[in-house]
Every structure is written in C-alpha cells, then in structure tokens.
C-alpha cells in the first residue's frame, strides 16, 4: 500500500490524468442515469472537482483545494495556469471562419451583449456584497460571463484565490441554470429557428450550457447555437482583463 502511494505521489501529473479520467467517467454515468442527459456530464465533473476541492480545503486548511494533499499534488499542475491557457488556446482551432461569417451580424451583436450584460450584473452584485476593489469586481463579473473567463481574467489581474473560486462558482451556476432551464423556457425565448439559436448562443454563453440546453430543446438547433457560443470564451478572455477591467476601473475611481 505504501509502495502504491509512493508511485502515485512521485508521478503527480499522471495520477492527475487518472483521477480526472475517473471523475469524467463517473459524471458521464451520473449525467445519463440521474438526469437523463439533461445536465451535461462536464458540468457534473466540474461540480465533483469543486466538491473535491472543498474536501481538500477542509482537510488541509490551505488554499489550493485537492492539490494540497500531497498524493494529488499533480492536479495542481494539470489545472494550473500553464496547461489551462494552453488548452483554451487550442479550442480556437475548431472555429470555422466561413461558418462564423454566416452567423453574421446578429450573432456578433448578441455575443457582445452576452459578454457585457452578465458582466455588469455580476460586477454590480459583487459590489453590493462588499467586494469593492476593482480586481474582485472584474473577476466576479467575468465569472458571470463564463466559468472560464472568470479565472482567466482573475489570473491576469492577480485576484485572490477565494475571489477566483467565487467567480468560477458563479459561471458554473449560470451554466447549470442554462442547461436545466432552456428546455422549459424555450417558448418564452422564441427558440424555434436557426437565427434564434444563434442569438441564444451569443447571449447565454458557455458552450456546455448552450449545447446541452439546445440539445434538450431541439437538437437540430445545436450547431447554430454552439457556433456563436464558441466565440464566447475567447471574446470574454480578450475583453475581461482589458476593456471591461479598464471600464470598471474608470467608473469606480
């Protein structure tokens, strides 16, 4: 047993791959069995991750969640800034520029609105609850865009770890609300043709939320929504630490 522990601890990153693989497998099953595929497997996997981070935090009393347990220190490397940014940049490879042009003006407008509006809501609520400094407001506001934009913005601005976690929690809750709520709100949203799906993809954000939400509504709409939504994280990562941060700073000082 001690020998096994030694192998796991000495090969931290590989242990992290195994652990995340197991989490993903488990959440895919939970997604199908418990929620009939309505809550996307990746959302459940992230929830499990946050739960493990909570467990790690309670167990060690430190700040890096599960990575503070020496057996799982490799998860800190896998989920660290370097690999995270590397993987996010790689997703840009799947963006089809010609397809994107077809999404056209309305997609771009809703994309911009879908970045700015949640940011304003998130930053205002952060301010109302006592997060008065510009970096925290921007990070939590960015988290209300997507759960990727939040930590990317926070990391760029040097936000504290608890504000980062709060911003991820905000984005994650938003994604889950979109996934679960879309099929029920489809009538109110007017979600019944490709154009409306593009508007939805731009405004609702998060690819996992949009694709899961549309799949549960009318799966023919999925590519239209996802096409616009794939730009969401990129635009947010571009605007969050730059334009939105500067605008917040200008308003607050």
């Amino acid at each position, binding site marked *: 047993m001690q020998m096994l522990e030694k192998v796991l601890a000495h090969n931290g990153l590989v242990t992290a791959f195994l652990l995340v693989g197991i989490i993903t497998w488990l959440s895919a099953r939970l997604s199908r069995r418990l929620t009939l595929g309505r809550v996307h497997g990746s959302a459940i996997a992230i929830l499990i991750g946050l739960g493990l981070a909570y467990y790690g935090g309670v167990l060690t009393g430190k700040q890096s969640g599960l990575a503070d347990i020496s057996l799982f220190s490799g*998860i800190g490397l896998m*989920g660290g800034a370097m690999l995270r*940014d590397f993987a996010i940049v790689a997703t840009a490879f799947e963006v089809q520029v010609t397809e994107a042009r077809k999404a056209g003006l309305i997609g771009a407008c809703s994309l911009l609105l879908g970045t700015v509006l949640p940011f304003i809501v998130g930053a205002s609520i952060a301010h109302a609850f006592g997060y008065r400094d510009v970096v925290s407001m921007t990070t939590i506001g960015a988290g209300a865009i997507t759960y*990727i934009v939040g930590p990317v913005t926070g990391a*760029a*601005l040097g936000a504290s*770890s608890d504000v980062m976690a709060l911003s991820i929690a905000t*984005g994650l809750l938003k994604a889950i609300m979109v996934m679960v709520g879309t099929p029920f709100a489809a009538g109110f949203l007017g979600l019944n043709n490709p154009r409306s799906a593009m508007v939805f993809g731009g405004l609702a954000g998060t690819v996992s939320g949009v694709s899961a939400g549309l799949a549960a509504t009318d799966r023919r709409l999925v590519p239209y929504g996802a096409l616009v939504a794939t730009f969401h994280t990129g635009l947010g990562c*571009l605007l969050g630490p*730059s334009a939105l941060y500067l605008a917040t700073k200008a308003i607050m000082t």
Partner: protein
Amino acid sequence: MIIYGTALLAACHLLGLFLGDLLGSLIGVKSNVGGVGIAMLLLIFARLYLHKRGLLPQETEQGVAFWGAMYIPVVVAMAATQNVVAALRGGPVAVLGALGAVVVCGCVIALLNRGGSQQAWQPEAETPQDPLA
C-alpha cells in the same frame, strides 16, 4: 508530425501571452491584457494561412486537436484546486450573480427573437430516442 501542431500551438500561446504583457505595459496596466484571446486569434489566422497553402496535414492538426479536447478535463482539474471553502462563505454572490445574468440575458434573447420577422420551424418530428443510449 504531431509535434508540429503542438509546437504551432505553443508558439501562438507564448507569442499571445508576450503580446498581452506588452499591451499591458503599454497602456499602463500591471497585468496581462487579453493574452489568451490574442493567442487564440493568432492560432485562427495561422490555421487559415497554413490551410490555404496545404501545409496542414491531418497529423499536424491532431497535435492541436488533442489539447483542445483536453480543455474540459483541465478545467475539471482546475476546479479541484480552487479555494472552494473560502468561496462558499460568500455564497449569495455566486447565486445572485448567476441568476441575475441568466434572467437579464433571457429577457434580451426573448426581445431579440420577437423583434425580427422570421419563420418558426415546425416542431421536431417524433424520433424514437432512447435517453439511455
């Protein structure tokens, strides 16, 4: 070679972050300004350029696609390293922030979709679908 794709990705990543740092110091912000976003744009343009010249065999693409596919797992690992204990103390911020964003965006979606004149799709034909499949 798969490594060419990964190297291309690495080049865009590093150049983007460098330009982000440069942009940050230019406008007097003590942070990286949009480095990841710039890296994404670089990768999109690099792909278009290389694709047009036929310099992008499928193996090279796989060197990038692998890392793109690793994005959710990396995010799961990132979630597992966050300071959740501290975040939960600020509970209502996350709930209200998310709920507010969803409600505001939902209303704007409804508004935009009612404004345009457009044909509604017929409801999807009955297709037997096993939810457990």
